[in-house]
């Protein structure tokens, strides 16, 4: 009794247009909740400011000898902000997909959306891209403010390479997002799950400290996470002025993760969707 999943009635061009219209709809809806927009703008600023001020209180200056020894840069403000930026994009892709489907279940629109003959992955991608677009805006604000108040030593000439490197990491984030969206579709209770995962990633990812300070067991887990390589690679390009050839060692595992997580994400989402359709609980909240 297995159905052929995923619509399949639309061509690639139509699916791309579905991604676009979902992105547009998400942005319009987002802007219609101005309080959310305000909180979303302020929260990352508060997080990064508290980390930077904490660092200054511990070190007493913008430069840390200890960090320089561990991470090849003593500029902890720049070190932290690049970590925050990359992790913000990773989180926005992951949570953008899982939160958005749950939101549709709450609002009652998931069934009417899934009744359309387009691919579910186009809908998920539209949601992820909209989330990334808003994140870009807040990241730009973060960078501007931190540059203004604390000064930021970022090699802006390397920005295109850093973006290219991020694009290499993106498919793995999307694949993990597909998996999370599938799990949330079935298990519903996603807040506790996502909060726990956020805290776990906050510990394991080298956002505000270098990997070398993590206990070895945790470090191994960190190496299993694609955002770890994305943060390390982009930090290397944006702060340490590395060339593309110097971050290739980090890009290779990312490409492996891309293939693995995209395949796993598609399979997990399709399996979870089928479970939900069998249980008859697609629209349940």
């Amino acid at each position, binding site marked *: *009794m*297995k*159905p*052929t*999943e*995923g*619509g*399949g*009635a*639309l061509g690639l061009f*139509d699916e791309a*247009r*579905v991604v*676009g*219209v979902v992105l547009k*709809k998400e942005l*319009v*809806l987002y802007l*219609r*909740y101005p309080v959310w927009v305000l909180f979303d703008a302020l929260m990352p600023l508060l997080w990064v400011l508290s980390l930077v001020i904490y660092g200054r209180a511990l070190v007493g200056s913008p430069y840390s000898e200890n960090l320089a020894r561990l991470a090849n840069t003593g500029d902890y403000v720049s070190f932290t902000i690049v970590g925050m930026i990359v992790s913000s994009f990773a989180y926005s892709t992951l949570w953008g997909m899982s939160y958005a489907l749950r939101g549709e279940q709450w*609002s*009652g*629109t998931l*069934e*009417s*959306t*899934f*009744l*359309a*003959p*387009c691919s579910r992955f186009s809908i998920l991608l539209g949601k992820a891209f909209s989330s990334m677009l808003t994140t870009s805006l807040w990241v730009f604000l973060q960078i501007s403010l931190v540059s203004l108040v604390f000064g930021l030593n970022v090699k802006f000439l390397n920005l295109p390479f850093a973006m290219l490197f991020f694009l290499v990491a993106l498919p793995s984030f999307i694949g993990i997002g597909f998996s999370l969206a599938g799990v949330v579709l079935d*298990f*519903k*209770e996603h807040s506790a*799950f996502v909060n726990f995962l956020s805290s776990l990633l906050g510990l394991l990812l080298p956002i505000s400290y270098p990997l070398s300070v993590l206990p070895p067991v945790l470090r191994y887990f960190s190496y299993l996470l694609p955002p770890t390589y994305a943060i390390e690679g982009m930090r290397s390009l944006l702060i340490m002025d590395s060339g593309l050839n110097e971050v290739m060692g980090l890009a290779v595992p990312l490409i492996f993760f891309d293939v693995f997580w995209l395949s796993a994400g598609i399979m997990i989402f399709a399996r979870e969707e*089928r479970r939900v*359709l*069998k*249980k*008859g609980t*697609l*629209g349940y909240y």
Partner: protein
Amino acid sequence: MVFHVMLEYSVVAKRLRKVYRKEEGGFPFRRKSSETIVALDDVDLSVKKGELFGLLGPNGAGKTTLVKILSTIIIPDAGTALVNGHDVLKEPGKVRASIGVVSSGERSLYWRLTARENLEYFARLYKVPDGVARRRISELLSLMGLEDRADELVEKYSGGMRQKLAIARAILHDPEVLLLDEPTLGLDPSFSRSIRVFIREELNRKQGKTILLTTHYMDEADQMCDRVAFINKGRIVAVDSPEKLKAMIGMNEVLKIVVSNLDEKVLTMVRGLPFIEDCGVANAEQDGRTMVRLYMKNVDANIQEVVGVFSKAGCRIFSLSIEKPTLEDVFVKLTGEVLDG
């Protein structure tokens, strides 16, 4: 044979079965309970092309499950279903492209988008070309009487306006088949009437769409449908035109009595009268009043005796009327149960 079925019928369901198993506990300790609910039990159903077909049954009878299986958002445990010649399990994308679905309730639209934005969004999901979508959205908004408020947020709409918009969304891509699940549920009578007229006259008669409509309002099914299927506890009990179904009762009139102080003893006495063929008790009790429908021959000749039994038993009679048999009478006769609502 299959080709013949495809030509003549838009919807064909064969031995559809769906059993829900309850779950206990929360994530990650959720487990399946041994308690099950049989939502559909070997359901066979065929809806002809261009037909307005009603699925009539009480709440929980399995109507919504059947519509959701036909619209590919529930997978059956057994059986097959074809919609527009496409198998719901093997070609869900083609099925979705050829159907429009309206469900009861008002939450299937984005309340923080305008009516126009909602329609533009769904037009793209259904691959309606931009030019066609613009024209069709204008036409539909006008047809539904929503053009003056097309650029208002849906959250400001009344329930009836939202339901009209939901219908507009369902027919935006001009599907051949419409699955309407309780489309007038919770609407005030004037909105319900206008929606019924629109479904029957515009969508079915004028545009020739095949419509499968579920309802638990007998009047709705009686007025609108070419054929009606009764569904109860997951099983199809009878299928025919409303007129033929009503003729099944075998009599032209039904005696309807509203009484108080009714108990099982009085009912047994009434049922024991030699001319009484059957008796239905409605669940609509108000201020201790109960509606009893008596199926009997020669109502005029026997009415005094019936009144006498109720009076002697201490029941107060509030109203007495002789009516034509309704679909509800047929349902009561076939199942021994009443349609709620």
